C-alpha cells in the first residue's frame, strides 16, 4: 500500500480544507444573492454560455481521470505512463484555460464582463454584482488551475531528472493529483451555481 504518512495526510487535508473554505465564502455569496434576488440572478445566469461551461466541465473531469490514472501508474512503478498521464492532465488544464479565455473574450465583446470597456450591457446593478462574483470566482479558479498545471510540469521534470523514483516516491504524484481533484470539485460546484441558476 502507498498511503500518505499520517502527518503528511493531515497537513495536506488541512490545506485542502482551507481551500474549500476560500471558495466556500464565494459560493455562500452567490447563494446569498440567489436567495435575496432570485429573478435578477436567474436572468443574469441565462446570459452566461452554458454549453461552453459544460464543455469545460468535460475537459476538467477528463483531466481528473488522467490525474487519478497517473497516481495509480506511479504506485505500479510505471514511470513512462505516469509522465504521459501527468502531461495529458496538464494539457487538458491548458485546454480549459484556453476555452475560458475564449469565453471571457466573447463576454467582453458582448459588453457583459465587469472590466473597463467590457461592461456596457450590464445595466442592472444585481446583474453587475452577479457578473462580479462570476469573474472573481472563475478567475480565482483559473489561478488555482494554473498552479496545478505548473505542479504537474514540475513533477514530470522531477521524474525525468530521476529526483523522484517510483514506486518509492509515488506520494510525490499523489499530492499534486489530490490538489488537482480539489480544483475539479470547486468547478463542479461553481458550474451549476453560476451557469445553471434557473
Amino acid at each position, binding site marked *: *500500500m502507498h*498511503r*500518505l504518512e*499520517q*502527518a503528511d*495526510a*493531515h497537513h*495536506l*487535508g*488541512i490545506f*485542502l*480544507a*482551507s*481551500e*474549500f*473554505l476560500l471558495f*466556500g*465564502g464565494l*459560493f*455562500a455569496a452567490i*447563494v*446569498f444573492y*440567489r*436567495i*435575496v434576488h432570485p429573478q435578477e440572478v436567474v436572468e443574469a445566469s441565462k446570459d452566461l454560455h*452554458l454549453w461552453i461551461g*459544460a464543455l469545460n*466541465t*468535460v475537459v476538467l*473531469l*477528463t483531466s*481528473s*481521470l488522467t*490525474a*487519478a*490514472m497517473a*497516481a*495509480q*501508474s506511479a*504506485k*505500479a512503478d*510505471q514511470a513512462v505512463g505516469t509522465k504521459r498521464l501527468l502531461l495529458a492532465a496538464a494539457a487538458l488544464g491548458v485546454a480549459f484555460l484556453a476555452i475560458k479565455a475564449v469565453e471571457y473574450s466573447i463576454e467582453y465583446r458582448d459588453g457583459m464582463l465587469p472590466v473597463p470597456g467590457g461592461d456596457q450591457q450590464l445595466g442592472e446593478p444585481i446583474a453587475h454584482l452577479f457578473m462580479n462574483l462570476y469573474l472573481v470566482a472563475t478567475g480565482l479558479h483559473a489561478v488555482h488551475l494554473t498552479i496545478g498545471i505548473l505542479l504537474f510540469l514540475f513533477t514530470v521534470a522531477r521524474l525525468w531528472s530521476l529526483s523522484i523514483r517510483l514506486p518509492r516516491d509515488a506520494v510525490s504524484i*499523489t499530492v499534486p*493529483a*489530490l490538489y488537482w*481533484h480539489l480544483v*475539479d*470539485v470547486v468547478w*463542479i*460546484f461553481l*458550474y*451549476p*451555481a453560476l451557469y*445553471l*441558476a*434557473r
Partner: protein
Amino acid sequence: MPRLQPLLWVYLALLALLALTVSASFLPLGGLSPVVSTAIALAKTGLIAWFFMELRSEGWPLRLALMAGLFMCSLLLVMSSIDPVTR
C-alpha cells in the same frame, strides 16, 4: 499493470451526472432547481473523493480533515442563508 477500469466507470458516471444536471436546469423545477443541482454536485464530489482521490484506501487523518472542511463550508452556507431566508 494498475486496474484502471474502475476509474473509467467512475468517469462515465461523472459525465452522466453532468448530463443530468444540465438537463435538470431546463426543467421547470422552480425553487427546487438549486437543491437538485447541489445534490448532483455533492454526488459528483463523493465519486471523485472516494475513487479519484482514493479516500477509500487513505487513512482517517486525510478523511477527517476534508470532512471538517466540507462541514465548515456547510456551516458557512447555512448560517449565511438563515438571514435572507427568514426575512
